[in-house]
């Protein structure tokens, strides 16, 4: 692959698209430097970005809360489009998918925003530290019922998912381990009357020693240490990150990554660099892109501006809304995005994006002039569209839309080509 193709690949997978002109600049920078800038923006001199969300006062009124929620989601998508540190935010999204904390369940915005900040701030840090923070995070304590779990009657919800979904994967622990974790993790509460402050209440905690994964544990610290020190942990976590960005890399690539992640003491930035370097070296398979990254990529390339309510409507119709993973397993897999609902909705969304693109935007002028290679390049497909899409674009009459280029841009965005990254 050419450097331009490598950069375009990294930008599609790890940055969720580029604005017009950025591909040229990054090609001049080179692949290695681009990976550096993605994984370590501080080192590349890209300024840290403040939390994009507003700290709302909680209001116990449905209409106001919906409005605040809408603004939060809008700030989220806007930040994903405008950020100069796109990979940090793509990783935060990975953790959003991994932990799958749902706005539908937690419903308290200040705590949800703290959670979003947590996964953004620690998403490229130390995995063990991240799991420790998540285990006593207010949103998670409510989401998986840790906040109501007591020594007298422990609730297994978080203990089970900590093992099955967050650190080890099924087959690496027993039902007894689940129950031991549930007991040792008791005592944490969320004080709803004190602004959802997280507190540890010793009398709700069962501190008796529990046998857990072959070790003795009795609190959050020891449970997290035992889970993260388990031999399956590095492979489970690194495999999930690698598949998220690379598709289905070979077992040998995954095994090597797991070993290096373990040797790096579960340092996520080392893992991330490893994953992106493997991707640039061709260790990846085609991926069906989910609606949110597809949408963000289209907004970046076109510069289209869409009002918040319409954005959420489009994303919901396609089947993926920020803050609303359908269940504790996170967002569903690729086949979901090929389903008829999502396919039909993507066509409608592409029309809205094209309509919302300015007359002088490169996306519109290239489409109006029939510059199909240039349009493909703008959409980060430097080697051009597929034969079918190219033929459909060439055959499309110019008067399909009142404004020249708008119909062609919509067709390009809706095409199967843009669905595969």
């Amino acid at each position, binding site marked *: 692959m050419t450097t331009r193709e490598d950069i375009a690949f990294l930008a599609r997978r790890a940055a969720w698209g580029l604005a017009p002109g950025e591909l040229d600049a990054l090609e001049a920078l080179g692949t290695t430097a681009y990976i550096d800038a993605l994984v370590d923006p501080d080192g590349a001199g890209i300024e840290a970005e403040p939390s994009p969300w507003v700290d709302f006062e909680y209001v116990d009124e449905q209409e106001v809360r919906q409005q605040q929620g809408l603004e939060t989601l809008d700030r989220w998508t806007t930040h994903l489009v405008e950020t100069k540190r796109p990979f940090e935010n793509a990783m935060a999204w990975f953790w959003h998918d991994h932990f799958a904390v749902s706005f*539908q369940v937690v419903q308290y915005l200040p705590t949800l925003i703290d959670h979003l900040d947590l996964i953004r701030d620690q998403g490229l840090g130390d995995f063990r530290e991240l799991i420790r923070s998540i285990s006593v995070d207010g949103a998670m304590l409510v989401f998986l*019922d840790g906040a109501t779990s007591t020594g007298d009657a422990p*609730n297994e919800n978080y203990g089970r998912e900590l093992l099955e979904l967050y650190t080890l994967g099924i087959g690496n622990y027993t039902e007894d381990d689940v129950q031991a974790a549930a007991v040792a993790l008791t005592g944490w509460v969320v004080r709803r009357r004190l602004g959802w402050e997280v507190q540890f209440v010793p009398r709700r905690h069962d501190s008796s020693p529990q046998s857990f994964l072959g070790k003795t544990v009795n609190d959050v610290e020891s449970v997290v240490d035992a889970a993260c020190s388990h031999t399956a942990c590095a492979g489970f976590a690194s495999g999930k990150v690698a598949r998220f960005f690379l598709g289905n890399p070979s077992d040998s690539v995954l095994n090597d990554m797991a070993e290096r992640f373990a040797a790096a003491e579960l340092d996520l930035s080392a893992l991330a660099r490893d994953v992106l370097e493997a991707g640039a070296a061709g260790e990846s398979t085609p991926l069906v892109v989910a609606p949110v990254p597809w949408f963000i990529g289209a907004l970046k390339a076109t510069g289209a501006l869409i009002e918040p309510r319409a954005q959420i409507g489009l994303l919901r119709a396609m089947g993926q809304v920020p803050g609303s993973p359908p269940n504790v397993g996170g967002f569903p897999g690729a086949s979901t995005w*090929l389903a008829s609902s999502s396919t039909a909705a993507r066509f409608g969304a592409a029309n809205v994006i094209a309509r919302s693109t300015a007359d002088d935007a490169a996306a519109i002028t290239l489409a109006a002039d029939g510059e199909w290679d240039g349009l493909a390049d703008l959409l980060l497909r430097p080697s051009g569209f*597929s034969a079918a*899409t190219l033929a459909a674009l060439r055959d499309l009459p110019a008067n399909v839309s009142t404004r020249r280029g708008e119909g062609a841009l*919509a067709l390009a965005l809706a095409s*199967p080509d843009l669905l595969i990254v």
Partner: protein
Amino acid sequence: MSNQSLSRRRFIGAAGATAGVVAVGGGIWATTLRDSVEQSVLEGIGSTTSTTTTAAGTGAAPYGDRILVVLEMAGGNDAINTLVPASGLYNDARRELALPANELVTLSGTDYRLHPALTTLAPYWDDGSMAAVAGVGLVDQSRSHFKAMDTWWSGIPGAPSRTGWLGRWLDATLEGPNDPLRAIALGGGSPALVGDKTLATVVRNPANFSLRTFPDMDADTLINAFLDTAEPLAQTPELAAAQAAIPSTLEAVELLATVSGDIDETAVFGSGPQRGGESVTDLLQTAAGIINLGVGTRVMTVGISGFDTHADQLSRHHDLLNDVGAGLAGFFERLAADGHLDKVMVVTTSEFGRRIQENGSFGTDHGTGGLQFIFGPGVVGGQVAGELDLANPVNGDLPVVLDTRSVYSIALDWLGGPTDEILGGPHDRLGLLAA
């Protein structure tokens, strides 16, 4: 490709339709296809003359075949708070969550009683078109949502499977190329429908299953161009799959009725019992509309969630069951009014039951032995097969005394089979299959 030219012809035919306009989030959309879809609905109604309520399978609808609807209740429905056993052990285990005895719904011929939110279903029990299967599960029943659901979907315990139990039946009975309307998933896709040859249509939200363009655009031309991006198929399987999704989507959109509810697509926090999902009532009304279209649909799944009641179970479970009860009753009433009641079997599934003992969060954790219901003229109703045995717990769970493949067998028999080869051998029909 014949499918494609068929679709293209239909789209050209729809070109004369007047664009309906609806406002979505401040934008104006033309729904050029809605009119042709509505026309199909009308044709469907016009050709349905049957009002028969006699023996199953004798309906005179255009495609005259039996239909199976599977209601997938994701999260693990609490069996003993849905069908309450008459045992003192129930109140011992459920100090906070026990349902008051005087509110439970008596079921004739059994000691079990129904959750009060399911009162609407009692008439079906009484007329013999509703049965319960209790203490049901699969070999190696797992307490992991995902492992349990995988097995429930595949119907093959102990081994990973690429296909679902319904997908294998659809493959086995497929004549000719895939017909996207034979299998429809409402509320979200179901892995149970995955086959090697079958591609099910997924309708997440019936209200917006359409191809939207703006009124000043040449919608038919643009939609036909969208179809053109699907051929020739690319070399890479992923791109080819993305292409293949387009013609079947267009065909389904064109043919399916859009029974639009008043669902607020922009609400950030859902207000229904599920996590931001559609209501059972809306989805089942859509299912009834599809049945009335008579487009050859044989299997539908209806996916709902929220049954993972680790905390605050009483109110949440009540709301969920209330939606299920009202949704099913409304569905059967609509089927009866349309003359289709004799064609349809409904089976409920849920990946596991919950622990006998409640936890400290006014909820219940994952268990094993579960509960299913079967509805319709194909079941010998008014009876509970198996049992919810509180006296002999296994690791704190209800024992699994029946295999869900028995229920699946009854369902596939209803469709006319083949059954046993799909489910890896014969399974007891539990005396529930109507002759």
